[in-house]
C-alpha cells in the first residue's frame, strides 16, 4: 500500500508558476521588430549597409566575448543583447562610413557602454547611443558625410570609403549629399513627406524609412515589449513643441512642421528602439512620462539651436543620465499608504 517510489523532492519555493516570456525571448522581439528597418537599409544602401551592420555587430559581440568571464561567456552572448546593440548602432551609421570605424564603434558600445558598468542591466546610458556619440566625437567628418539612397539595382555599388584602411579616413569626394534635416537646417529646404515616409533620402542607413520603423514600433507596442508611455510622450511633446515654435516664428522661418520633426532623422528609430530600452529608461509609469517628455522637448531644442542638425542622440543620453533621479522621485504610491 505504501508508495515506495518516493521521488526525491525538490524544495523550490513559491511561486512555482511563471509566465512564458523570458529575457532572451524579449530580445528576440526587438530583433524581429528591427527586421523591416534592416530590410529597408539593405534596399536603399545595398551592400554597404550589410557590411556596416555585420561589422558593428561583430565588434559588439566580440567585445562582449573578450571581456566576459570565461565561464559566463556562452551565457552572456546567449541573451543576444550585445548583438542587438551592434545592430542598433549599425543602423545609425552613414552608409559611407569606413568599416573599421563601425567595428570600433560596436566595440566601444559594449566596452564602455555596458561591460564596465557590470554587464546587462547595469548601464546608465544606452550602449548603442554611447557608441554613436563616441564615433561622432572622434570622427565628425566621416559620421556626417551622407551618401544618397539608392535602390535594389545598385545593391552592389559599394561606397569606396567603406574600405578605408584602419586609422584612415577614406575619400568622400563625389558622394556627399545632405540629409533632410541638414537641408532643412542649412538650406531651408524641406523634403517631401512621402520620401521621408518611404526612406529614399540621404541619411543613416536605418533611420530613413519612417514606414518600416513604424511597423517595427507597432509590433513592439502590440507585443507589450516596450512601455507605450515613452513613445506617446515623445511624439506628443516633440510635435507640440515644434508646432509652437513654428507658430511663434512664422511659416517662412526655417522651422519644421510637426510631421517633419517626427519623420526625419533618428527620431523614430530612437523613440522605438533606444529611448524604450528598459535598462536605461525609468521603471515607474510616471517616470516614463517624464522621460519621454524630456526627450521630445530636448530633441526639438537641439535640432533648432544646436550646431548639428540631429538631436535624438543627445536628447536620449541626457535623459538616460536623469533616469535614476526620475525613478527616485516617481516611486508609485504604495497601497494603503499616503504618498
Amino acid at each position, binding site marked *: 500500500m505504501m508508495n515506495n517510489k518516493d521521488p526525491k523532492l525538490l524544495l523550490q*519555493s513559491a511561486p*512555482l508558476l511563471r509566465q512564458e516570456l523570458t529575457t532572451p*525571448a524579449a530580445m528576440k522581439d526587438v530583433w524581429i521588430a528591427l527586421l523591416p528597418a534592416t530590410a529597408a537599409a539593405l534596399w536603399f544602401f545595398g551592400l554597404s549597409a550589410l557590411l556596416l551592420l555585420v561589422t558593428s555587430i561583430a565588434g559588439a559581440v566580440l567585445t562582449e566575448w573578450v571581456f566576459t568571464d570565461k565561464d559566463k561567456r556562452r551565457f552572456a552572448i546567449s541573451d543576444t543583447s550585445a548583438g542587438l546593440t551592434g545592430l542598433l548602432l549599425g543602423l545609425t551609421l552613414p552608409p559611407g562610413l569606413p568599416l573599421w570605424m563601425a567595428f570600433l564603434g560596436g566595440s566601444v558600445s559594449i566596452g564602455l557602454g555596458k561591460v564596465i558598468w557590470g554587464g546587462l542591466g547595469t548601464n546608465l546610458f544606452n550602449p548603442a547611443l554611447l557608441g554613436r556619440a563616441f564615433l561622432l566625437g572622434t570622427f565628425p567628418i566621416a559620421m556626417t558625410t551622407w551618401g544618397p539612397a539608392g535602390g535594389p539595382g545598385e545593391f552592389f555599388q559599394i561606397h569606396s570609403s567603406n574600405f578605408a584602411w584602419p586609422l584612415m579616413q577614406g575619400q568622400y569626394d563625389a558622394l556627399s549629399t545632405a540629409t533632410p534635416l541638414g537641408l532643412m537646417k542649412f538650406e531651408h529646404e524641406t523634403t517631401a513627406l512621402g520620401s521621408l515616409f518611404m526612406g529614399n533620402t540621404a541619411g543613416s542607413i536605418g533611420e530613413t524609412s519612417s514606414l518600416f520603423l513604424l511597423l517595427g514600433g507597432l509590433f513592439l507596442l502590440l507585443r507589450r515589449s516596450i512601455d507605450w508611455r515613452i513613445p506617446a510622450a515623445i511624439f506628443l511633446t516633440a510635435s507640440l513643441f515644434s508646432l509652437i515654435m513654428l507658430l511663434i516664428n512664422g511659416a517662412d522661418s526655417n522651422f519644421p512642421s510637426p510631421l517633419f520633426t517626427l519623420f526625419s532623422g533618428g527620431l523614430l528609430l530612437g523613440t522605438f528602439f533606444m529611448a524604450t530600452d528598459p535598462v536605461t529608461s525609468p521603471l515607474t*509609469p*510616471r517616470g516614463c512620462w517624464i522621460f519621454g517628455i524630456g526627450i521630445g522637448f530636448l530633441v526639438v531644442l537641439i535640432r533648432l539651436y544646436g550646431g548639428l542638425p540631429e538631436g535624438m542622440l543627445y536628447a536620449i543620453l541626457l535623459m538616460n543620465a536623469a533616469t535614476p533621479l526620475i525613478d527616485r522621485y516617481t516611486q508609485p504610491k504604495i497601497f494603503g499608504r499616503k504618498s
Partner: protein
Amino acid sequence: MSKLFSLNSLFSLPFSLKKGFSHGVHPPHHKEQTADLPIQRVPFVSRYIMPLGQHIGVPSEPVVKVGDRVHRGELIAQPKGFISTALHSPVTGKISNIGMHRYVDGSFRQAIEIEADPYATQQFVNTHNNVFNVKDMNIEQFIDAVQMSGIVGMGGAAFPSHVKYSIPDEQVITDLLVNGAECEPYLTNDHRLMVERPEAVLRGCEILRQKLNAKRVAIGVEKNKPESICQLKNYLTDDMAIDIVPLEVKYPQGAEKMLIKSIYNKELPAGKLPRDIGIAVNNVGTIVALADYFDHGMPLIERIVTLAGPGVQEPANLIVPIGTPIRDVLDFAGGLKEQTREVISGGPMMGSPIADLDAPILKGTSGILAFTEKETSRPPEYPCIRCARCLDACPYFLNPSRLALLGKARLFDEMQDKYNVMDCVECGACTYACPSNIPIVQHIRTAKDNLRNRKVET
C-alpha cells in the same frame, strides 16, 4: 491572437476607473482538473499526527498521555493563552506517542500521535456535550466556544479565528466579508464547498453576522466559478442580509486587502486591520467549520483538500481528517506519478514545498499539488533588465525590481526605509511576471526575516 498581442494592456490607463484592485497577474487557473469532482471522504488510516503548533500563535498544550484512549472529536490539547487554540482527535483510537515529528517543511515539531482503532467510525463526540444554542450566547461565550472548537483560518494562514472575533469595545463591525475568491490556480476546495454545501456557507454567515453584530455579509467569488455563485444564490433567502459578489478573475484577488478594495472600494491603510475599518474577513472554509460546530457540535477535525497538479495520478477533492499523513492521502488517490519532482502544500503561487510526505495534513492545508519536471525546471536567472513587469504586477505598488536588487546586496535597511519591504505580502505576482526569472520573493523573504529578527533582538 490574444496571447500574442494584448490590446487591453496596451491601452490600460494609469489610473483605474472601475471598481477592483489595480495591477495583479493572470496565471492560467488550471482548475478544470478538479472543479467538477465531488468531494470524497478519505477512509481512516492507521496513524494520525497532530502537531501542537499548526496555527499561528502559541502551540496548544496536551491534555492526554501516551496510552490514553480518545474518541473522534475529543479534546487532546487545550489552548495555551489567548492566541492559541484547541486540538481534537480526528479519529477514535489510542495516543501512541507525544514527541517530535516531521513537519511539512522538514523541521521537527512537537506532535501527538494517535493510533486509530481498526474499525473506527465517523461518529464523533461533542466536546461541549450539548448542541449549542448559539442564539443565546453572548459574545464572550461565543469567543470561548470558537477557541475551544479549534477553528482557525482555513484559507492557509491558520490564524485562530476567535482572536479575529474579539473586537475591542470601541470598534464596531459593520460588514462581514467572506472570501470565496480562491484565486490560487489548481485549488478547488472552496469552490466545491460552495457548490455542495451552500446552505452551510449561508448558515455560517448568518451565525457570525449576528454574533459580530454586522449589518451585511458579502461573499466574494471569482467569476470563473459560476456554479458556486449560482448555488449560493439558489439557497439565498430574503431574510438573509447576504450579498453574493462576483469578482474579476485576477491574482491575488483573494488577498485580504485586495478583496476589501474590490468589494468595498476601500483602501485599507498599511498597518491597519480590517476591523479598524469595520470589516471582518473570513474564508468560506472557516465559515462552514463554524456552521458545523454550532449546528452539529463538530470541532475542527477534518477539512477539504484539493489534490491536483500534473504529478498526481487521480486528482480529487477530499475530506481529510486533520493529521492524516500526506502520503496516505496521496495513496488514496493512486499515488504520485513517477515524473513528480515537487509536492507543495497550498496553491502554486503562495504554497510551500513539502519536504517529507510522512508529514500530516494540517488545519491550514488547502491543497496538495504535485508538479513534474516541466513546471519545476527554470530557465537560468538573467540580470534584471528593468522591464518594470514586476512593478506592473505588484498589487501593493511596491518596487520589486529595486527590492530584489537591494536584497541581493543585503541592504535590508534601505529596503525598509525607502521601499517599505514589510508591506509585501509575498503573493508572488512579481516573481511570476519576471522574464529574467529572478527569485524576487525569496530575496524579500530573506530581508523580512532579517529585519524581524533584528527587531526581536533589540
